[in-house]
């Protein structure tokens, strides 16, 4: 097992596994969701065909992005099940079914966004806030540890991230006044190596950014997978909204470390730097987007960068060694802040934009400019592809008293009446914060984006049309109507017969496409 783990770690740390496997949630630890495969390319994309479809027997939303390893796909099914699938034929090899207690609290459906794999083990964070290691050959449980108490409103929906010999995982429950965390577990044993809470403890200086003891219920959960940079040994992970969501009076202050990106030492779990995108958020704009790590020229000098398309409608670039703020630009319609951030990247909030008992109209809506839709970065085009949405919301404030395990929202939101959400796949030029091209969608989509060395960008529309676009122009090259709502992210892999496939979950089905 030790040797297997070591070998696998080497493969996992390489920028992209050369075998055509898809070993991480985002394909590589740097968060690129880019496939180096080019069998499917601009010249033959129009001949893409459905290779197989695998239906699940659940009615919950299917948000998972599969892992592909040596001819087998490992995918989580809602609520917290896992299946192993033969990647050429789509046939199920084994299925792990988790028995959940009735009393799990969750905000947005009984969902799961994917598994991680290291050596012989497959890892899933479960809705009842456990981390479970399964034997990759049988689906048998090898270890199962409780991460947090579901009675307090904790759950887990995030795909874990493998960093060396550890499983890194975040928390969910941000609508129940939990205390968010990112934790590392030893892959082999399930022993916790470290845990970093995303809201401060009593005595920490950061408690001064919260009124009274409101930090105790501060949320800032971590429900979308972060990234890892082997060159600095830092993990980058986004944090969610402060609690309660829509009424800030009870938690006056910036509310650290909600709505932030954290740079974390992978061995110790200590925070090296942070940047807060939306201080004192009252619109539920979690910064739980995937940080994209690139080494590129910045104003004539090679730098290690983090690119971050945020839910609050601004696009950011940082130096990932120091946390230095380099760029911030509005990239989607917004009405809550001045169009220009200040010199340190802090938004200049406009008056009368906070929720009120009678409702306040603000752009973007609570689901934000982008959300858990995974972005993609192509080293070939140097473009950062982002699924965006454009929609106004009416934000109402209410009153909630914290009660363990219960909703802690203090308000609500609705879509702006008389308007429909629209969206676009935007190809962001990180050097300017502007889109080089965009592909408009008639409705907003919850699908993520994949780019490939074949010069293609894949994503699904909100109503389930799978699209292949030219990565330099955004021109539509192919589409396939999958017939369901898309909440998941596409991947690409080589099947056992050596053919490139592109797979995505849509509706209650996993689809896999290839070129005949």
């Amino acid at each position: 097992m030790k040797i297997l783990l070591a070998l696998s770690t080497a493969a996992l740390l390489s920028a992209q596994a050369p075998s055509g496997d898809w070993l991480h949630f985002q394909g590589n630890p740097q968060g690129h969701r880019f496939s180096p495969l080019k069998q499917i390319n601009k010249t033959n994309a129009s001949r893409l065909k459905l290779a197989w479809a695998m239906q699940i027997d659940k009615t919950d939303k299917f948000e998972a992005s599969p892992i592909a390893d040596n001819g087998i796909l490992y995918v989580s099914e809602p609520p917290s099940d896992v299946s192993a699938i033969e990647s050429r034929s789509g046939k199920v090899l084994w299925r792990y079914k988790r028995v959940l207690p009735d009393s799990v609290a969750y905000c947005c459906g009984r969902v799961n966004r994917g598994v991680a794999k290291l050596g012989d083990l497959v890892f899933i964070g479960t809705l009842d806030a456990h981390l479970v290691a399964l034997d990759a050959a049988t689906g048998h449980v090898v270890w199962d540890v409780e991460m947090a108490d579901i009675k307090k409103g904790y759950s887990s929906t995030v795909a874990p991230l493998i960093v060396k010999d550890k499983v890194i995982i975040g928390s969910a429950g941000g609508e129940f006044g939990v205390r968010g965390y990112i934790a590392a577990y030893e892959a082999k044993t399930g022993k916790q190596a470290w845990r970093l809470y995303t809201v401060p403890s009593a005595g920490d200086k950061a408690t001064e950014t919260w009124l009274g003891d409101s930090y105790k219920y501060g949320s800032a959960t971590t429900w979308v997978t972060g990234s890892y940079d082997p060159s600095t040994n830092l993990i980058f992970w986004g944090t969610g909204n402060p609690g309660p969501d829509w009424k800030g009076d009870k938690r006056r202050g910036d509310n650290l470390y909600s709505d932030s990106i954290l740079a974390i030492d992978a061995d110790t779990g200590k925070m090296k730097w942070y940047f807060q995108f939306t201080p004192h958020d009252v619109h539920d704009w979690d910064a739980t987007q995937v940080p994209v790590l690139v080494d590129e020229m910045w104003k004539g000098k090679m730098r290690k960068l983090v690119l971050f398309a945020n839910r609050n409608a601004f696009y950011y670039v940082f130096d990932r060694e120091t946390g230095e703020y380099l760029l911030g630009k509005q990239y989607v319609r917004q009405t809550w802040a001045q169009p220009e951030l200040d010199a340190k990247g802090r938004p200049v909030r406009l008056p009368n934009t906070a929720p009120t008992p009678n409702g306040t109209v603000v752009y973007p809506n609570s689901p934000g400019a982008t959300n858990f839709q995974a972005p993609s970065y192509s080293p070939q085009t140097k473009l950062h592809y982002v699924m965006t949405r454009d929609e106004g919301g009416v934000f109402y404030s209410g009153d909630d008293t914290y009660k363990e395990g219960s909703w802690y929202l203090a308000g609500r939101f609705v879509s702006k009446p008389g308007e429909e959400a629209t969206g676009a796949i935007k190809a962001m030029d990180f050097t300017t914060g502007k889109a080089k091209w965009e592909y408009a969608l008639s409705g907003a989509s919850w699908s993520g984006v994949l780019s490939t060395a074949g010069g293609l960008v894949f994503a699904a529309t909100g109503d389930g049309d799978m699209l292949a676009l030219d990565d330099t122009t955004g021109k539509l090259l192919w589409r396939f109507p999958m017939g369901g709502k898309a909440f998941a992210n596409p991947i690409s892999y080589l099947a056992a017969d050596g053919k490139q496939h592109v797979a995505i979950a849509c509706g209650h089905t996993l689809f896999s496409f290839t070129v005949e």
Partner: protein
Amino acid sequence: MRLTILALWCALALSAQMKAPTDEASLREGLKLYQFHCSFCHGKGDDGMAANLVTPNLVHAPTDASLVNIIRNGIGGTDMPPALGMSEQEMLMVAGYVRSLGRTAPTSIAGDAAKGKALYLGKGGCAGCHMVDGKGGRSGPDLTLIGAMRSPGNLRTSIVDPNASMVGGWSMVHLTLKSGQKVSGIRLNEDNFHVSLRDGKGKIQTIAKAEAVKIDRDLTRSSMPAYGKVFSEDEMTDLIAYLFSLRGAL
């Protein structure tokens, strides 16, 4: 948070408080419905081919609401189908009857579980093929929860005559390929074109049927040998006591 589903949450909160009836008239009616809808697979509760219901802790149904939900919808991916033609009230009465079976469940059975564990790990060599709590082999079903799933009688049958208690997903398949090579393993999937199997080393292989000249399937013969003659009667009782004690953390 992405979408607030308060109404759903309220419905779930209410259903979690659902209580199955315990009065005699309801239990009698529940028994009648049980005999019609359930007994074909579950027998009297602890002697059928389906899960043992004579237990205070049903693995898939920790609450009455979840039990009714299983009766209503079945358990996807298993042989447990949804109930057809029962009203909500009738499903509640069936749930009440099933719960009553658990209330009379023996809290202990004959045999020494500690001695049984030693037999499991030693003389029986069971861990070579089966996993318990993440430790053991991959050639047979995981036994971590077997005590909650099976009755003592069914466990005995499985050990003495494994062929009489075949478990889906664990039959062997043997292929002879055109090259003359022979491949055997646990059959994970078979369609018109391919066979997927897990070989003795735990490696998963998918083989095109076009490559095979002969395919043999052990559909009625378990890969587990009969252990009736391996253990004395006392040892068998101890081993069953150990297996019956395996209920995981639930």
